[in-house]
């Protein structure tokens, strides 16, 4: 009899605890849905989609980076390489091979995954070593592409895809990529895989000791984190019609992805979205009002964030008010 009571009590507390977890997921899902819906309406309501397009791009970049930084603790300083390779894969498939755009975008994703598999051995490295090797490999990749015959990559001139121009369709393609990224992050945060990744981030040795296959689990996160920036690179190439070898592998792209995600808070799932929106907004205002000191102010904003909000906006809120952890993931 007592054990029946006990079972019922366990069941009740399980319901309650799971309800809490589900509430958190629902809040995040509702937030994401609102962001997606608002961005879907932008081209219908206004003529100027540029800011919204780049907001989607940076939300994608920051959220995908969060998969590898927030969930595994690796900081790939050459993260831009996936974006750049995605852009070039789409460009080469469209321009040189004559593939239709949708197929070229699939090629972007495939290229990102293949590159991630190629770079997977670097996951053996840790901390700063991983970051620097990643940066060096991104530089190598940029130099290799710059040295390929220019009838493939366009050499230092880059590729121009003028005949594919379709700002409307490419806008919604980016929306799709962003939505897929957010869904993946949402799923990951709830899944056993996501918990295993966080366990690995906290202590990989102890994670192995409870039966988690650390290299394999990390690899899954790594592939996911590579897929979305590659797709984003492909879609952006389509949207702007230009692939510039300097820009496509520029360290600032990595840096901005990191800074936006960091500003929101790594490891929280809505953090990178909040961070990208806030900082891109600030950046936009600065750019319009003070174009000359734009970069200077961006740098100062980063310094201020690191000194005063080292856990990011969402991370700091959760640290100060732990009771909010029930609602915010």
């Amino acid at each position, binding site marked *: 009899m007592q054990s029946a009571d006990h079972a019922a009590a366990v069941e009740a507390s399980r319901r309650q605890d799971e309800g809490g977890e589900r509430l958190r997921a629902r809040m995040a899902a509702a937030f994401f849905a609102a962001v997606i819906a608002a961005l879907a309406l932008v081209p219908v309501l206004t003529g100027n989609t540029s800011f919204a397009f780049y907001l989607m791009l940076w939300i994608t970049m920051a959220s995908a980076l969060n998969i590898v*930084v927030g969930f595994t*603790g690796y*900081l790939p*300083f050459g993260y831009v390489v996936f974006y750049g390779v995605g852009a070039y894969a789409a460009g080469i498939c469209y321009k040189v091979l004559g593939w239709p755009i949708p197929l070229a975008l699939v090629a972007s994703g495939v290229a990102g995954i293949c590159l991630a598999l190629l770079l997977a*051995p670097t996951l*053996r*490295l*840790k*901390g*700063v*070593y991983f*970051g*620097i*090797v990643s*940066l*060096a*490999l991104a*530089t*190598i990749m940029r*130099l*290799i592409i*710059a*040295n390929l015959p220019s009838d493939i990559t366009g050499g230092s001139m880059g590729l121009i895809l003028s005949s594919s121009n379709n700002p409307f369709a490419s806008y919604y393609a980016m929306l799709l990529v962003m939505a897929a990224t957010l869904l993946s992050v949402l799923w990951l945060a709830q899944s056993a895989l996501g918990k295993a990744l966080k366990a690995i981030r906290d202590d990989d040795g102890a994670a192995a000791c409870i039966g988690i296959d650390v290299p394999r689990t990390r690899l899954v996160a790594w592939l996911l984190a590579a897929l979305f920036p590659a797709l984003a690179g492909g879609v952006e190439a389509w949207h702007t019609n230009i692939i510039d070898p300097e820009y496509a592998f520029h*360290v600032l792209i990595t*840096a901005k992805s*990191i*800074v936006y995600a*960091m500003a929101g808070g790594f490891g929280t799932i809505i953090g990178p979205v909040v961070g990208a929106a806030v900082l891109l907004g600030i950046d936009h205002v600065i750019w319009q009002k003070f174009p*000359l*000191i*734009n*970069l*200077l102010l*961006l*740098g*100062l*904003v*980063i*310094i201020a*964030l*690191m*000194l*005063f909000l*080292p*856990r990011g906006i969402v991370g700091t809120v959760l640290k100060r008010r732990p009771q909010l952890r029930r609602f915010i993931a």
Partner: protein
Amino acid sequence: MSGLLLQGIINGLIMGVIYGLIGAGLNIVFGVLRVVNFAHGEFVILGAYFAWFLLQALGIQPFLAMPLTFAVFFGVSYLLYFVLIPPLAKADDPEISSLLLMFGVSISMGALMLLVFDADARSLSFEMEPVFLTFGPVVVPTVRLVALAAALMIVAGLAYFLYRTHTGKALRAIIMNRDAVRIVGIKVEQLSAIAFGLGIGLAGVTGILTALVFPSFSPFVGADYTLIGFVVIVLGGLGHPIGAMLGAILFAVTEQVASIYFNPSIATICGFVLMVATIFVRPTGLLGRQALR
């Protein structure tokens, strides 16, 4: 043929020592503070601008400007330490947070230099007689040789400081074991500020050397020096002051010798591939002993 090779090796050695100084500055800051100074390259460039200013405005010769630059950079960054670094201790992952913080510093400094000095490439208009020295098949600009001598003197001074003085020994003790040092009762805070000042002071002086060895500098090239600095210290062993020098010479000789046979970007690839390959064979670099987290 062998003359060209010899020329490449000589050039590689000269650049290697300078890269090594960049790496040594980074390594002291990383080793003592666990701070990844992503703005190191900008401090190098700022050193070059500082010497340029001293030469243009006050007529101070670059080699005389070195001690002055070191003193100014050391003093300013000694104070800067107390503003920037202590708050990092609160972060979840101080190492990565420091990287991002210093990245912010790097962007700000690059932008400031762009505003103050414009985007044009500058160079130190400084010449010595004779302009070139010839040793058999090898031709070396005199300025480079003098710069090499100055660099070697700085290395010797640094080694003396780290291995013979009380403060230097304490710094090395912190690099080896931070916790133990705290227990022994060394003033970690003040020594950390000294290490920060020393690292950035070295960056400033190295900036003057790079301005003498390379034809020009501009606000945009700081990141390149930071990357090279990291590549050489990762190659040599993070936190290991001498490892940086070894890694740098290896990297620079590889790059310079490769540039004889291939175009410059292939040569850069060769240097980086060397670093990546070394890391896979020896995950803590050539001289790194302890596995760093």
